[in-house]
């Protein structure tokens, strides 16, 4: 189960390195759980686009005699994968208290996000060829995926706009969110093109900061400080078709296999989900994941999200902290952190009334890596 959550200040926070954010996040998570840092006996680290985090974090934290230590990288699915591995470790007795951390510091006062996420490949070899061809960074790849869904199912940019609008409304109730001013679908449509069919408001933020969670057993957590967040189910799916012929590209992701598997492990149906925290690097990623998880039928994601179901007060509590679009971009730790907050009942003005079951997705690469988690306030799904 998840017994601790540590979040540094997130967003345009300049000064600390990624490793310093990571160390701070672990210290905060231990304190949140009511643990002394020295009680941590397992550490899983992960890093974002700027790297800078490794197993050396152990030394930064002064942790001695760890029983588990590794650095993981499966892009946006890493956070869920770390929690899965940590859960397996504590279940098997490999370790008893495992800290899982992500941090990144891509923002500099003097440069924009595109300078970081757009130009990390030297113009040589296969990567250089892709960039020389005009396909630079994630934006065009996801735009090509979204266009394919539009062509096949009639999905529209306005429908994607409803996702951005609903998440901004949720973000307005989250003090940690970077963007809190309400927007309309008209605002979404008027925002500049990034890569058609994506407007600016289809695309996630870039953030500095770090987030960590503490994973332990229910027995070990009995005396700790926070309400329990049990990890009832997990599954990964890594499709391995990036830059290859892929008839499912943009139409179906790893969520279609990992989601049902994780829910089966947890003993729940999609109709049991109280809160959905879905990876939202783009609005389109949310739409595709909703379909793949079975919240609506394949191809009906557009009309589904445009029906008002995602707005605060709507039928589905989705990305209740504003997600990566309006909240903060900590890769897979964005949906994980908000799910922990919601399951605990600590969401303040944005707290979902029913919060027994949270479904969490992580997505990495270009819809190539996926992890699903099912979190619950109860030890078994009721």
């Amino acid at each position, binding site marked *: 189960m998840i017994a601790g959550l540590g979040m540094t200040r997130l967003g345009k926070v300049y000064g600390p390195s990624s490793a310093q954010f990571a160390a701070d996040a672990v210290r905060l998570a231990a304190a949140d759980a009511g643990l002394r840092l020295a009680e941590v006996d397992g550490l899983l680290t992960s890093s974002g686009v700027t790297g800078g985090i490794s197993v050396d974090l152990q030394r930064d934290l002064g942790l001695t005699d760890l029983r588990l230590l590794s650095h993981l990288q499966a892009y946006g699915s890493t956070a869920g994968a770390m929690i899965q591995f940590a859960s397996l470790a504590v279940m098997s007795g490999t370790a008893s208290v495992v800290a899982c951390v992500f941090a990144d510091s891509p923002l500099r006062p003097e440069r924009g996000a595109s300078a970081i996420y757009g130009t990390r490949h030297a*113009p040589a070899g296969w990567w250089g060829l892709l960039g*020389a*061809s005009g396909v630079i960074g994630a934006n*065009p790849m996801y*735009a090509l995926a979204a266009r394919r869904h539009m062509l096949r199912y009639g999905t529209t940019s306005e429908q994607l706009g409803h996702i951005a609008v609903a998440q901004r409304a949720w973000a307005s109730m989250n003090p940690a969110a970077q963007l809190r001013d309400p927007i309309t679908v008209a605002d979404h449509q008027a925002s500049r093109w990034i890569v*058609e069919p994506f407007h600016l408001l289809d695309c996630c933020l870039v953030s500095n900061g770090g987030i960590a969670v503490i994973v332990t057993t229910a027995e070990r957590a009995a005396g700790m400080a926070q309400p329990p967040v049990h990890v009832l189910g997990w599954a990964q799916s890594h499709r391995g078709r990036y830059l*290859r012929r892929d008839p499912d590209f943009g139409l179906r992701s790893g969520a279609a296999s990992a989601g049902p598997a994780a829910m089966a492990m947890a003993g729940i149906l999609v109709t049991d989900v109280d809160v959905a925290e879905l990876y939202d690097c783009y609005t389109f990623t949310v739409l595709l994941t909703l379909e793949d998880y079975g919240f609506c039928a394949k191809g009906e994601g557009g009309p589904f999200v445009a029906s008002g179901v995602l707005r605060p007060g709507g039928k589905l509590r989705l990305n209740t902290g504003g997600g990566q679009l309006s909240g903060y971009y900590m890769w897979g730790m964005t949906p994980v952190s908000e799910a922990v907050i919601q399951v605990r009942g600590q969401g303040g003005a944005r707290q979902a009334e029913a919060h027994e079951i949270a479904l969490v997705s992580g997505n990495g690469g270009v819809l190539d890596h996926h992890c699903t988690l099912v979190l619950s306030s109860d030890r078994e799904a009721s």
Partner: protein
Amino acid sequence: MTVGPVIRDEATAEFFDGTAAGQLLLRCCPAAHYSEPAAAQCTTCGVTELHWAPAAGGAALVSWAVTDAKAAAGEQSKRTVLVIAELDEGPWWWSQLDGADADDLAVGLRLRVTFRRPSDEYEAVPVFVLAGS
């Protein structure tokens, strides 16, 4: 519509020899399955005995996106149509579509591979044009 600079490395040397000669080279296995040029083993049957084989150059449009590069002062902004195209041999390819209006595109539209260089010092890059153009 311009391609960017790219230089060869060990893995891409033969491929760029091909583009310099006007060929898009694919990897082909003894069973005549085609794989994308970066493949180290056949994507159909997994064997590692691959040889280079030129694509015929025909392709069909799979998806497209449009970038609108920020214009420098005094210049017109450049709209670039980026596409996924299915080569007639099977593999998909990601590049630009030159000389087409984004409003006139449809899935399955016939395309043809051609090659562009930003300047003589850099490698030739495969791009697409409308078939028959």
